[in-house]
Structure formats: structure tokens, C-alpha cells
């Protein structure tokens, strides 16, 4: 409730400040409740920080005008049932000029049907699954590196350290993680790994003991998989509690969150494929540097940013850049600007595919691997371990 009042307060402030300038409205839903709420809120903070930064600087300047940014956003309850109603509402009643996607691939797919119909640009973040971009959409632009890349990086890193490892895939049975694991399984076999166990678990699973018993029985030494925050953190805790003898654990999404350190010893050594890490040192052609973003974010939210937050902020930057290039908010012009975008920000390179069969798919961005390690003082920190060129620490293998 407090948060809502705070947002209303911010909104009224931005109204007050912008009465002379024009405004653009960006619409999106946030999963304030439900299973996706941790990940979705981090993404939302990225959006919010971008808006406040832009407005503090006097808005987006394009074609000789300034546009202050305001948001129209609702709770989607982590459920696609109302997503279409809410996106339609934002487009028609709140007159949103541009849209950001909800969090997660499946909610995004539902929203995309509405946004395409109204020919509204939607930058998708937190939606790595590729199927949605292969349905013939014209106005959808993906900020995340696609799902296929997530675990291939981990397998490459493993190949370099232990080509004889036996691999188990344990993953959430949801659009995103299935889209990640299916190509990864094939890739693992291609690299010559022995995949000894693979099982998908239902979303919302909290008791992993049966699966863990099977992992132990399979004699796997490496576990890859996971899904989102809730299930991933639980899986890691229980792997630790059952003392499963694993040399490497790479889980999707969850370990990227700053909350991961709350797991204590169970957090140590877990690897996460990441869209962005605070240690990454991209030379930003546009917008803040990574360090500045991290500082501003920590100052505002009292927590380090996750890659969802960075993705959220970067969505704003890319949109802002495209509006500036287009010299206004005309959808066709901004879409054209996005099509020709090839820009490096603190978040890395962003470039969208313009091939008709996969229009909007992210082709510029790449995946990092980050690992939770104890630093010299014993504190838990997340280190970039892959690609080797950008590493901030060596991969710890085996974990213990």
C-alpha cells in the first residue's frame, strides 16, 4: 500500500513539473502478487529509475520538444488471464504511447497479441523465450539475449574445466526454462557430455526431495536448470541440505537476485547465466556507465541491481534513444529507429533482428556467467566467471 501511495506521489510530482512540457505514457503490467513477483519487481525498479532519471533531466528531447515520461501500470497477479484486458486498457484508456512487456515469456506472449493489433511498440524484457518473436510480430523488440544462449555458456565453461562431467538437467516446466534446456540438452550431447538425468518439475514446486534422491542415484556431478526465483532458491537450499555431491550447479534467473545471498552457505558456488552484471565494463555509447547505474540504483533501493533491473532500465534507454532518433513519438518512425538500432549501453550491445521470420529477436546481446563466491573477507559476492575475457574472478570448480 505504501508503495502505491509513493508511486501516486511521484506521478503527481511529475505532473506538476511537466505542465508546460509534453508527456509520453509508457504502459506495462507488473506482477505485484503471485509467483513472479520478486523478479517482476526488480524489473519494475529498472523502469522506475529510468523514468525518474529522464524526468529529472527535463524529459526526452526529440524534434525540438521535451517529453516527460509517465507510467500507466497495473498488477497482473503473475497470471495471463487479465493481461489482455489490462494492456487494452493501457492502450485505449490510459493512451499509452509505448509499452514494456510484463515479466516472463508466457505473460509477454499474451500481451503481444494485443499490442500487435494496436500496432503499439512493446519492448520486451524478462521474456527470453524465442517462440513469441517467430509468430510474425512487427512491433515487438526483445531486450534479453534469447533463451538458447543461457546454458550453452555454462556448458562451454564446463567443457573447458571438466570434459568428463556427468550432467543432470532439473528445470521448471515453464516456457522460459523449457526453451533454455531443450537446446542445452542437445548442445551438451554435442559437446560429448553424458546427460544422466533430466526432469522438469511443476512450477510452484517446493519439495524437491524426490527429484534430489533421483539426482543422487544418477551419480550426476553437474546440475543445470532451475526456472525462476521461488523454485530456484528452494532447489539450491535443498541440494545443500541433502548434501548432494555436485561439482557445479548452474540455475536460471534466481541466483542473480541480490536476495540470493540470504541463502547463506547454500548460495555458495551457484552459477547463474546473466544478461548483465555490475562488474561488466561495457563502454556505454549512450546513457550512464555501469558504475553510475549501479550507484544510482543502490542509492534509491538500498540493494544492488539485478540483471532484471538493468534490463528494465536499458529498455527505457533504448526506447529513449529511438524516440530521439525518430525526432518524435510517431510509432512508425520509432519502430524504424528501433529496427536500425545497434547501440552499446551500460547493459551491453542491443540490436534487433529485422529478418521477417524472427523480427525483433535480440541479436546483439550476449550472456554472462556469474558465480557466487566468498571474497577474501568471507562475504558472499557474485563474480563474473565467463566469458573469460570479461571475468572478475576464476570459476570455482568443484564448488567444495
Amino acid at each position, binding site marked *: *500500500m505504501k508503495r502505491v501511495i509513493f508511486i501516486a506521489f511521484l506521478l503527481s510530482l511529475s505532473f506538476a513539473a511537466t505542465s508546460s512540457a509534453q508527456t509520453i505514457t509508457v504502459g506495462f503490467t507488473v506482477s*505485484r*502478487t*503471485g*509467483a513472479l*513477483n*520478486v523478479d517482476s519487481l526488480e524489473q519494475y525498479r529498472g523502469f522506475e529509475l529510468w523514468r525518474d532519471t529522464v524526468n529529472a533531466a527535463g524529459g526526452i528531447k526529440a524534434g525540438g520538444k521535451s517529453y516527460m515520461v509517465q507510467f500507466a501500470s497495473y498488477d497482473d497477479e*503473475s497470471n495471463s488471464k487479465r493481461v489482455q484486458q489490462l494492456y487494452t486498457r493501457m492502450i485505449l484508456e490510459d493512451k499509452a504511447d509505448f509499452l514494456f512487456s510484463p515479466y516472463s515469456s508466457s505473460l509477454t506472449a499474451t500481451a503481444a497479441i494485443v499490442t500487435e493489433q494496436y500496432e503499439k511498440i512493446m519492448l520486451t524484457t524478462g521474456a527470453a523465450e524465442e517462440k513469441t518473436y517467430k509468430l510474425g510480430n512487427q512491433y515487438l523488440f526483445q531486450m534479453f539475449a534469447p533463451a538458447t544462449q543461457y546454458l550453452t555458456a555454462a556448458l562451454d565453461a564446463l567443457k573447458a574445466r571438466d570434459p568428463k562431467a556427468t550432467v543432470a538437467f532439473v528445470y521448471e*516446466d515453464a516456457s522460459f526454462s523449457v526453451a533454455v534446456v531443450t537446446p542445452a540438452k542437445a548442445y551438451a550431447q554435442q559437446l560429448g557430455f553424458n546427460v544422466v538425468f533430466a*526432469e*522438469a*518439475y*511443476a512450477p*510452484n*514446486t*517446493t*519439495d524437491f*526431495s*524426490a*527429484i534430489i*534422491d*533421483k539426482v*543422487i*542415484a544418477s551419480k550426476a556431478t553437474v546440475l543445470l536448470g532451475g526456472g525462476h*526465483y*521461488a523454485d530456484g*532458491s*528452494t532447489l539450491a*537450499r535443498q541440494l545443500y*541440505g*541433502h*548434501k548432494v*555431491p555436485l561439482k557445479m550447479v548452474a540455475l536460471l534467473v534466481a541466483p542473480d537476485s541480490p536476495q540470493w545471498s*540470504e541463502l*547463506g552457505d547454500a548460495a555458495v558456488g551457484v552459477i547463474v547465466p546473466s544478461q548483465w552484471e555490475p562488474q561488466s565494463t561495457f563502454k556505454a555509447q549512450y546513457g550512464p556507465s555501469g558504475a553510475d547505474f549501479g550507484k544510482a540504483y543502490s542509492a534509491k533501493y538500498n540493494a544492488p541491481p539485478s540483471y532484471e533491473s538493468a534490463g528494465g532500465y536499458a529498455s527505457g534507454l533504448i526506447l529513449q534513444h529511438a524516440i530521439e532518433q525518430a525526432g518524435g513519438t510517431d510509432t512508425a518512425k520509432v519502430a524504424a529507429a528501433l529496427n536500425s538500432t545497434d547501440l552499446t549501453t551500460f547493459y551491453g550491445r542491443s540490436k534487433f533482428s529485422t529478418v521477417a521470420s524472427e523480427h525483433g529477436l535480440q541479436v546483439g546481446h550476449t550472456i554472462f556467467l556469474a558465480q557466487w563466491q566468498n571474497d577474501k573477507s568471507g562475504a558472499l559476492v557474485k563474480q563474473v566467471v565467463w566469458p573469460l575475457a570479461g571475468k572478475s574472478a576464476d570459476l570455482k570448480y568443484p564448488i567444495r
Partner: protein
Amino acid sequence: MSGILASMIDGLLIGSVYGLAAMGLSLIWGVMDVINLTHGSMIALGMFGMYLLFSATASNAYFLLAPLIVVGLVLGIIVYWLAVNWVVDRPILMSLLSTFAVNMVVIGLGTAIWSTSPYNVNFSVPGITVGEYTFTGNHIAAASSAVVIALLLELFLRRTRAGKAIRAVADNRAAAELMGISSTRVLMVAFAIGIALAMASGALVSTLFPFTILSGAGYQLKSFVVTVLAGLGKPFGALIAGVLLGLLEGAVSPFIAVSWIPLIEFGLFVVVLIAFPRGIFGKATA
């Protein structure tokens, strides 16, 4: 140690917690013929109750069960007067709806307070390792606590005056009233115990798995299965049925994907309902 044995021991441990959760549902259902749909939200409150108490006191989580049971009894009495007393003996739909309404309110308030993010009770008891398998101390402690609470309840029902009154009312309310037992008071006490059991089981679950305010729903469904397997109004039977259900899960899970288990469980549930409407441990005659 073989995988299936380890898996069955895990099943046995978690099964006793299912059993404890189902005992509350079974007691209420058996005594007053009310299917308590607040059950899930009370389990969730047990989880958050444990979370709050543990955060505040940082003492041994399993010792905190006692104050939580007291809270559960009080809460049970409140809910009884709010939503249950006036639906006893009314059509089944009335009691379903009135308890469901309370469930919605509790979930709604819980969502407003805690959102639906997962919470953890960071308390751990050292486990026991046999070969490559480790049974976590929390599972062992939770299962033992469940069995102890179940035994205490059984003693209460068999040995104390109040317990005997509850059994008499469950057996035949009209006859019990003729014998001078105040059925309203007995129903209230039984309901309060049912809620306290739900909260206790939620508190135990919170030491094993992360939870959200919505987590109770899954355990409520499991409680239905267990209650029906055991037969109504047989709280101790519910504990045994819970353990059996856990063992079944443990025994089949090495052979099939875990995601099939709900199908087996609820398929079994429907078949048992149709074939033995009085429960497997119930009397054979209709």
C-alpha cells in the same frame, strides 16, 4: 542405501506432516459435518506465525509450536463465531461458502501484508547421513513433532472429559445433547483444535520449505486426499493415511517423473471416494 529406500524415508517424513495437516480437517469435518475451507489459509497463517515468532525470538523453531498452537486455538474460536456457528446443520453449500469467504479475507489480508513473495524460516537442525543420502534434521524434527502432536490429540480425545464429549458429539450429536453435553461449546472447542492443528502443521512446513501466503492451498488439497483415504472424523487415521500417502509418493517417484504424482494421487482420491465413500479405514457398510 538404495534410491527407493531413501525416497520412501523422505516420503515417510513428509507424510507425517501431511497427516498432521489433515487431522485438523478431519476432526472438524467428522464432528460438525463442515468442510473447513479456511484450512489452507490457516496452514499459511501457521507458516507466517512461525516466521514472525522465529524472527522475533530466534529460539528453537520447534519449541515455538506451543505458543503457535495457543494462537491457533484462539483464532479458531474467533473464526468459529464469525463463520461457522451459524452454518452448522445448514446445507453444505452454506458452510463451504462461509468458510471460503473467511479464507479469501485471510489470504487477501496476508497478500496485503506479506505480498506473495516466498519467505523462509532459516532454522536448521543437523541431518543424518547414510551413504550418499542425507535426511535433513528439519524433516526428522518436523515428522517427530507431528507424531507427538497427533499422539497428544489422541490422548486428549480418549482420556479427557472434553475429549470424550467431542467424540460423543461426533458420534451422535442428538444423543450427546440428550445426555447434557452442550454441543455448541463442544463444536467450538473441536473447531479451535482443528485450526490449531492446521496452524501447527503450517508451522512445521515452514521449517522445511519456502512458503507464500498462497502455499496453504496445496496442503489443503493434500489434506482432502488424506482425510478421504482415512475416513471422516478419524484424526489418528488421518495421520496414518498421511504417512501412507507420503510412502506412496516416495515409492513411485523413482520410477516416474515427479510431475505425474498429482495425477496418481488425485486419481486415487476420486476412485477411493467412489469405491469407499467412508474411507479405506472406515466401516465397510453403507
